[in-house]
């Protein structure tokens, strides 16, 4: 493994007058979970899509192990990095196993026939995500937490080295949220590089090795360990609203809360 995906002074704008990313330098390495946090509209999802190669930066480069990402074919890229968007609603009814098996696509031959090995890999990925018991279930009948795990299994079935996830826990309860993140941690321990966009700063603080904090002004406010990034000053600057930071009673990781308006916070 030991892959590295990085952006080098990347700029991007959907419309020229309002840049979403300006000179962004971020990177994700094999073996770590990198959290991308920041307020709505700060360009977290855009950053992820630039790193995936879906959006071409106006300036700067995205490099995979030092090579320009755009020089790699779509198929080759899909074998190295896998992307999971925020909402995935399949148009057709499929069983959970079929959903996972479809993740094998970039590894299939030209006719797209799945071999016994492909089925084996799909099943292994379901086991890794604790979803093998669901394999005969109709994907549409699964709960939100089960769906996310099955989708995670489906991108693992691509056998990638890097995972880029856009708010994989957006609709999940606190328990399932922690479950997904614990799973991501485990994957990183096995060598995967994980970049994950999330709105839950507390979960991010607990499970990520590194955080990238973005602000609405097309700027990366801070990068570093959760302790370095999740501070009162940096968060207040990024979210343009007063934030309190305390400590997790057990792990000691930062806990983040908005400061109540009555406490005298100067709201912009």
């Amino acid at each position: 493994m030991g892959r590295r995906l990085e952006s080098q002074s990347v700029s991007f704008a959907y419309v020229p007058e309002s840049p979403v990313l300006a000179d962004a330098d971020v990177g994700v390495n094999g073996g770590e979970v990198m959290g991308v946090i920041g307020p709505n509209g700060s360009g977290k999802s855009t950053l992820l899509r630039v790193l995936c190669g879906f959006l071409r930066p106006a300036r700067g480069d995205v490099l995979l192990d030092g090579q320009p990402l755009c020089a790699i074919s779509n198929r080759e890229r899909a074998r190295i990095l896998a992307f999971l968007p925020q909402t995935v609603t399949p148009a057709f009814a499929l069983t959970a196993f079929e959903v996972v098996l479809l993740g094998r696509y970039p590894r299939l031959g030209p006719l797209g026939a799945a071999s016994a090995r492909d089925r084996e890999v799909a099943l292994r990925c379901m086991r890794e995500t604790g979803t093998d018991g669901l394999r005969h279930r109709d994907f549409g009948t699964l709960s939100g937490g089960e769906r996310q795990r099955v989708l995670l299994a489906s991108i693992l079935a691509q056998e990638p080295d890097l995972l880029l996830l856009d708010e994989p826990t957006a609709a999940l309860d606190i328990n399932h949220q922690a479950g997904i993140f614990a799973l991501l941690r485990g994957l990183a321990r096995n060598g995967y590089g994980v970049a994950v966009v999330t709105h839950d700063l507390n979960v991010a603080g607990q499970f990520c090795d590194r955080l990238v904090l973005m602000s609405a002004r097309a700027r990366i406010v801070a990068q570093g360990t959760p302790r370095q990034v999740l501070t009162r000053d940096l968060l207040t600057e990024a979210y343009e609203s007063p934030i309190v930071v305390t400590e997790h009673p057990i792990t000691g990781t930062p806990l983040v809360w908005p400061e109540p308006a009555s406490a005298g916070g100067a709201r912009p």
Partner: protein
Amino acid sequence: MRRRHGGLMAAGLTAVSLAAVLASIGVGSESISFAAAWRDWCAGRPLADAPELAILLQHRLPRTLAALFAGGGLALAGCVFQALLRNPLATPYTLGVASAGAFGAYTATVVMRSAGLALALWGFSAVQVFAFVFALLDVSLIYLMAVRRHHVSSSVLLLAGITLGMLSNAGMMLVRFLSEPGMLAMMERWLMGGVDVIGYEPVVRLAAGVLPCSAVLLLQAAKFDQLGFGAEVAQGRGVNVRRLQTTTFLLGSFLTAVIVSEVGPIGFVGLIVPHAVRSLTGSRHRLLLPLSFVAGGAFLCLCDIFARIMLPGETPIGIITAFIGGPFFLYLLLRRRFGDWET
């Protein structure tokens, strides 16, 4: 569950379809004996002296082949449009190809009549040429409006397609309003469709349009599965989404335009056949696409048999596809086996 019997279903469906095709060759207003035709064939008799063989070779066989190619092409186009637009209601005609074709056909009828011309271009009638050209114009306009840098916008495809379809319908009404009553019957009949071709020229034209397009579309099967999860997932798996959307839209529309200009806008095949097949085999396109083609061809052959025997003379086939297809579609709906769409 039922999906695990995919191979069995495929074999069964193919067998039933083959029976329908054979029946279509065998059934007609003249009852003919295959044995007699075979003896004539072996004896090498000229067709003029072998009436049974002549009916078989010059009427039944081309007609059956036309139904097979047209039905297969329409069902396949419907299936890929449903995948492209991620919409279970999509048909080959959703994007206005049939309406534009019909507008072209009506225009041709009026223009030729008033100019006193009987234009024919390399064996194509004016109606065919106009229908085809109008349909392609519709397709190109929609594509130009919907194409984006990284993908083709499904919602623009849909909205532009429906709008152009309505415009074509308005154009058609204008042409009807302006034309003489005598011509209306002719136009109306065209709208109802018919595979009552004679000889092999129409069959060759259909095959030349339908078979290559179908072959390319069938090769995309695995990509349609990916597109079912949305453009971004497909892109993440390495599918060139824009190329897939462009290929699907252009080839699907082209083959529909070929069929419509040859046999008229026969409805329902492109909607119900993919759903019926999906309810048997599941949603994996590697199985779904080829079986939709086979079942669509067989379905139109079957409808054509009814067209030949139901009433004295020919019943327009578009009426039959609707009368058989409509209730069957409602049955699927009631059985809650409306294809396999998440609803």
